[in-house]
C-alpha cells in the first residue's frame, strides 16, 4: 500500500519536474530563443528539427481511402485457413469501415459542454455572491437598529431586545 502511494507521488513529482524543466529550457524559453537568434549553428539545428516535425505532421495528415481497412482485411483473411475465412467474424471484417474513436466522436460536443459548464459556474458564483451580500446587508441593518435603540432607550434594553 505504502509503496504504491510512494510510486504515485514519485510519478507526480517526475511529471512536475519534466514540466518545470521543459518550461525553463525548452525551445520556447526566452533565453533559448535569444541564443538561437544569434547563433547560426543552432539556427540550422532548429531548422532541421522543424523540417523533421513538419514531415512527420505531413505524413500524419495524409488521408487514405475510406475502404482501405476493408480491402486490407479482405486480403489478409484470404490467406488464412478455410475455417477462419468462413467464420461470421471474417464476413464482418471484410465489410468493416474505419470508425472514429469515442474521444474523437465527443470532440464536436466539446465547445458546447464547455459553454454549459461556464454558464453553470457563472450562475453558481452569482448565487453565492447574492446570498453573501444579503447576509451582509442583514447583519449591517441589525447593527444600525441596535445602535438606534441603544442611543434612545439605553444599552441594557437594546441588548435584551436583540439577544432574544
Amino acid at each position, binding site marked *: 500500500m505504502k509503496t504504491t502511494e510512494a510510486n504515485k507521488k514519485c510519478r507526480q513529482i517526475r511529471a512536475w519536474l519534466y514540466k518545470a524543466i521543459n518550461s525553463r529550457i525548452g525551445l520556447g524559453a526566452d533565453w533559448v530563443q535569444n541564443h538561437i537568434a544569434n547563433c547560426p549553428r543552432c539556427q540550422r539545428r532548429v531548422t532541421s528539427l522543424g523540417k523533421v516535425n513538419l*514531415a512527420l505532421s505531413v505524413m500524419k495528415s495524409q488521408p487514405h481511402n475510406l475502404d482501405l481497412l476493408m480491402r486490407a482485411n479482405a486480403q*489478409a483473411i484470404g490467406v488464412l485457413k478455410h*475455417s477462419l475465412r468462413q467464420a461470421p467474424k471474417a464476413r464482418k471484417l471484410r465489410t*468493416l469501415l474505419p470508425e472514429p474513436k469515442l474521444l474523437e466522436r465527443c470532440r464536436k460536443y466539446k465547445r458546447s459542454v464547455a459553454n454549459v459548464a461556464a454558464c453553470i459556474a457563472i450562475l453558481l458564483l452569482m448565487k453565492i455572491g447574492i446570498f453573501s451580500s444579503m447576509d451582509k446587508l442583514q447583519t449591517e441593518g441589525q447593527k444600525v437598529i441596535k445602535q438606534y435603540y441603544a442611543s434612545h432607550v439605553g444599552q441594557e434594553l437594546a441588548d435584551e431586545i436583540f439577544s432574544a
Partner: protein
Amino acid sequence: MVGKAVSCGLIWDFTVSETADQSQQWVLSAMQRNGQELVNMLWRILGNEQDVCDAYQNTFLRLAHYEGGQKPEHIKAYIFRAASNVAVSMLRSKRAEKRLFTDPAAGKEVSSAANELDSKYLQEALRCYISQLPEHLRNVVTLRDLAELSYAQVGRILGISPATARVYRCKAIQLLAVWMNKENERK
C-alpha cells in the same frame, strides 16, 4: 459395430476441427481490435495502399503461423512489431530497386532547393531516413509518431520503460534532423 465406429470417428473429427477453429479465432479478434491502428501506421510508413494491404496480409499471416499456430503472449506487441518490420523491409527493398533502375545523374537534377518544402519530397526523405535508423530508435519513432501510441503503450510493446522510450524518440529525431541537414548541405 462398424457403423458405430464410423460415427464416433466423425464426431471426433468434428470436435477436433471445432477446437482448431476456436484456437485460431483470436487472429480475427486481433484483426478487429487492432486493424484500424495498424492500417494507419502502415499507411504512414509506406504511403501506398497496395503496399499497405500486402504488409497487413504478411503481418497476419505471420501471426497465424507464430510457433505453429500458438497464440503469442502479447498479441498487440507482436502485431505492431511485425508490421513495422515488414513495412521497413518493404521500404528498403523499394529503395534498392529505385537505385538500380534510376540514373544517378537524373536524381541530382530533381533534388533541388525548391524541393525542400515539397511535401511529397519531405515525406519520401523522412521515410528513407526512418528505414535507416537503428532498430531500437526506429521502433519508437514508428510506434510513437506514426502509430500515435502513448509512451506507456510504446514502452509496453517494446519492453522498455516510458522514460527510455522518450529518450530513444528524442535521439531518433535528432539523428533524422542531422541526416536531413546533411542532405541539404550536400546539395
